[in-house]
């Protein structure tokens, strides 16, 4: 197990290294000069040049790459070109929105998907199952930004139950903050919940076909006892993978939803940074997101080992 973890850690760092090169190169060839953007349409060329040197953009590529990497290893993500504050500070502010939103959406998605999937699986091909599967089929097909628009139209504009967006900050109180994240979290969670419910159902159905479930039934367990006591834990393994993937997807994938609800989250930070050519922010945030994906995969692997004793001992 330790060896396995070490190997995974090594491959994790290699992935990050490769990702850092890719991201750096892509942001390097992106057309548009950050300094020119910042100084605007009537700017004096000399002023742009002065800004370029102030931002360190006149240094050679390799030097800037190493500078960035070494800085990151020391926990210094550099300074935002546009905001002129440390990237880490900027990212910290945004994570305070994106992470809770992600967790909120993930919690909603799991809370919806779990019972729905179990219910559907336990009533295979019965009307309840077919109804749930129909709804999830629809949920998967709905683009979340469209769904978000409809939510705003209904709950913010027409009913005025929720504000149409924005984030008052955690200082405004946890409940207030959570309320402002509710519509976005629902918009994000619905398609994810649909996917998860489907995975949950099919995984559970597969497990219910396993011999050991039949054994459990032969022991005298009722259908639902066998489902909860024996099938569920085994069925959770593929579900865990999806939950892990969804976490990383939601963390980065909220961009459009963040735009619809004008939430100051990570996705919008990058989106904005791309259009403003705040390349250092783009790089650092993407690397951070890659790190999150890799780290979550790693955690999911550990979770596997906990869920499945067969993996606890040795694993290649």
């Amino acid at each position, binding site marked *: 197990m330790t060896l396995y973890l070490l190997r995974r850690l090594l491959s994790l760092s290699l992935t990050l290294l490769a990702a850092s090169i890719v991201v750096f190169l892509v942001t390097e060839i992106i057309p548009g000069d950050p300094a020119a953007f910042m100084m605007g349409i009537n700017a004096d060329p000399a*002023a742009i040049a002065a800004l370029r040197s102030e931002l360190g953009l006149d240094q050679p590529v390799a030097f800037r790459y190493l500078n960035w990497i070494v800085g990151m290893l020391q926990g210094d993500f550099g300074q935002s070109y546009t905001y002129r504050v440390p990237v880490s500070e900027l990212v910290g502010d945004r994570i305070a929105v994106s992470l809770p939103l992600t967790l909120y959406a993930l919690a909603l998605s799991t809370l919806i998907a779990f019972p729905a999937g179990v219910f559907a699986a336990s009533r295979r091909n019965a009307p309840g199952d077919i109804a749930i599967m129909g709804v999830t089929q629809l949920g998967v097909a709905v683009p979340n930004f469209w769904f978000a628009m409809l939510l*705003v139209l209904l709950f913010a504009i027409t009913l005025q139950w929720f504000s149409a967006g924005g984030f008052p900050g955690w200082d405004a109180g946890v409940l207030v903050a959570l309320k402002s994240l509710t519509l976005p979290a629902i918009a994000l969670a619905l398609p994810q919940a649909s996917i998860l419910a489907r995975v949950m159902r099919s995984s559970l159905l597969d497990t219910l076909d396993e011999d050991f479930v039949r054994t459990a039934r032969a022991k005298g367990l009722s259908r639902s006892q066998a489902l909860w006591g024996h099938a569920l834990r085994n069925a959770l393994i593929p579900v865990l993978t999806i939950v892990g993937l969804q976490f990383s997807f939601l963390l980065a994938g909220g961009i459009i939803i963040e735009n619809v609800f004008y939430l100051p989250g990570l996705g919008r930070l990058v989106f904005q940074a791309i259009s403003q050519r705040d390349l250092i922010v783009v790089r650092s945030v993407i690397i951070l997101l890659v790190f999150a994906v890799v780290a979550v995969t790693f955690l999911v692997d550990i979770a596997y080992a906990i869920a499945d004793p067969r993996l606890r001992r040795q694993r290649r």
Partner: protein
Amino acid sequence: MTNFKTVTATVSAVALILGLATMPSLAAQTDITVGMQLEPPNLDPTGGAAAAIDEVVYANVFEGLTRFTADGEVVPALAESWDISEDGLTYTFHLRDGVTFHDGSSFDAEDVKFSIDRARAEDSTNAQKALFADIQSVEAVDAQTVKITLSQPNGLFLFNMAWGDAVIVAPETADTLATDPVGTGPFAFATWTKGDSVALEKYAEYWGEAPRLDKVTFKFIPDPTAAFAAVMAGDVDAYPNFPAPENLEQFKADPRFTVIVGSTEGETILAMNNKKAPLDDIKIRQAISHAIDRQAIIDGALFGYGTPIGTHFAPHNPDYVDLTGQSAHDPEMARKLLDEAGVSDLTLSLKLPPPAYARRGGEIIAAQLKEVGITAEITNVEWAQWLEDVFKAKNFDLTIVSHTEPMDIGIYARDDYYFQYADADFKAILEELNKTTDPANRSELLGKAQRKIADDAVNAYLFQLPRTGVANAKIMGLWPNAPTQANDMTAVYWVD
């Protein structure tokens, strides 16, 4: 003290009567949330070009020697008054007394000298360095007097000093203005929640008339739909530059809101690359101008808000000459001109920056050009790309952009400007204009300049960008127009 008490008592009494008469409920609200489309990248108006900076801090946090009023007039600000020498080269500014910066330090002539010298220095990152180009020297005569000497007369100098890029800052705080702006205005910077909002608070020691609001929050909502929803839901109280004109009808119909329609300094043009074939042929440029139906663009892209223009000049300016008839919508004429120029199957690139007027206007223009046989290939670009590709590399045929700086007809005299006009005759007119201070002569020269660029069909002049805002009906004192990019909150208040 006694005096004060009396005043207070009187005020209270009056308020009581008024209150009984007009407002049975609570006292008026003293905080406001103002929606803006773009978040400023930083809050230093002397170190960045973004309009959003001025929209937050101009006249609220920072002030210059002079300032613009709501109708575009240049009036004294930190300079109480000034004397101009006979030759128009020396300006002596008499500064206001009792002005303090928000950090408590006092304001004097040294701060003015520092600010102006900083802006025109070699390594300055001031985006509008050109404003200071004619300044030869700045001298602090005494604590309340500053003498500025110009190298040549400049009729626009007081106007220039009213710009946000020319505000006065203190040397001690100059380096941190980007994140912690300290100025002399009626509001002091309080907090900045990045990606969401900037909050300002009333500055108790303000030299002038105290603002009626205690707190102003600028909330950044880039998405027009979100903006609509935010206004509808009451998340923002006012959105002075509302990005979706199509929604204004709904606001008009709703008694909770007032719609404020004003003008801006934004001449919106279909810019053409004057040195790139085939657009170096005036006939083709004229053909394009005639192919365009301005009213259709205004109706389709701006839902009827906006004034057609026939040259690069703001219609609300007294010196404006209406030349729209000269390039009236006439597809027949356009086709004829194209024939005369001997081109057929013309394909031109049309690069569109992000604002809705450009993206929507572009689609309409492409359709209109198609009617006369010109294919416009649309590419939507971001600002960064536009600056690099269009503005710097001049790799374009057509583009749509709104030139929002006030009185910017001078760009037609610039060498190497992106639409590459820089006609010698036009430059001569401008040179003369700069030397002229007499209003009548100036007016004539300005007319001449307007006619010249219209005659040459440098660009297709579309419309003056409107400023369409929406606000809670109980809010008073918002600027209807935008003589500069600003949201001056000094005179804003709530009624009940």
